[in-house]
């Protein structure tokens, strides 16, 4: 199993396990998935990544994943895009076996997104 496949599997398992709530976690620079606590008061429709996790992985965080429970085509929502304002991180949203990568591109000062592929792990 490749690092990419393992990452997809871990994110998918966490999302399924937290259903119907949104789950979230950190992806390290080694592309390992670390499940984190969603501290949103309305976890079925939103996520707020536990800031403690961002502190613990201050030097090693590559990106942040969250799920859209039950969504067949889990595109990043408008609020997801607003929350992706830290251009140091990549963001992944997904559920089941569908995952999108989105990130703030400072060159065009806008959010870009794409199907999450293995080539993104650089």
């Amino acid at each position, binding site marked *: 199993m490749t690092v990419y496949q393992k990452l997809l599997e871990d994110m998918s398992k966490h999302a399924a396990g937290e259903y119907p709530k949104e789950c979230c976690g950190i992806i390290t620079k080694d592309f390992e998935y670390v499940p984190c606590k969603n501290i949103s008061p309305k976890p079925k429709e939103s*996520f*707020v990544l536990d800031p403690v996790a961002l502190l613990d992985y201050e030097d090693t965080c590559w990106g942040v994943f969250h799920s859209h429970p039950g969504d067949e085509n889990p595109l990043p*929502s408008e*609020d997801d895009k607003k*929350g992706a*304002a*830290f251009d140091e991180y990549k*963001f992944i949203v997904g559920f089941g076996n569908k995952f999108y990568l989105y990130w703030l591109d400072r060159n065009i000062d806008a959010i870009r997104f794409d199907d999450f592929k293995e080539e993104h792990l650089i």
Partner: protein
Amino acid sequence: MRVKIHIHKILQKYTKGLAVYECEAKDFTDVKNALKNIFPKFNDYYSLVSNGSSGENLAFLDKNKKVITSNHYEINTLNKNNHTEIYLIPLVYGSGKAGKMLAIVAIVAIAAFAISSAGGLGALFGGAGGAAGGAGGAAGGFASFFTPQKLFGMVFRLIISQIISSLNKPPKKPAETDAPVRKDNNIFEGLANTTAPGTNVPIHYGQMRVSGQLISGFVETLNHPKDEDPRVGDRFA
């Protein structure tokens, strides 16, 4: 109280690369203001966050790395046991339902209240929903922001403040007059009240030069009849 603020790595671009900053503070407002006053870039960044121009937001963690929530910000007093060290951390969030996110983030975001006040009166009472601009957002924010406990607390504080203000009659301020007064003041008089309870007192930051209490002063006048009370204003007319 001396507070050590640990700044998260990705926020250090706003603090000239500084990872730890120490300041004197008595509440969370002092901590925020200290960062804003010392680091101009952080001040600019915080303005963008608080007026909703940037989707970014921030959270504080206490010494034990526990999230400081809006309940603490309402009390707005630093605790010697937990707040001698504070961590400033970026807040990462998202929501499938547009417009609800700011109210949700308000539980931990340090700039949430600033967001609500920027959105106008409706937004003020709608918590962070005001940044969404719509009346629906404001109403939704109201429901989530004003829990029965918070409303009870507000009413209780209002009643207590009314009772305290009714017990403390404001002292009469010295009347301002230019009527002639001839009085020797070779002895020190007692201090006089020049303000009343409930008057706002400005809080200053940085280096200050403050005058002392005026103890004694006089104006000497010349060339006038002995029985005439000269008016100072007339001498400069």
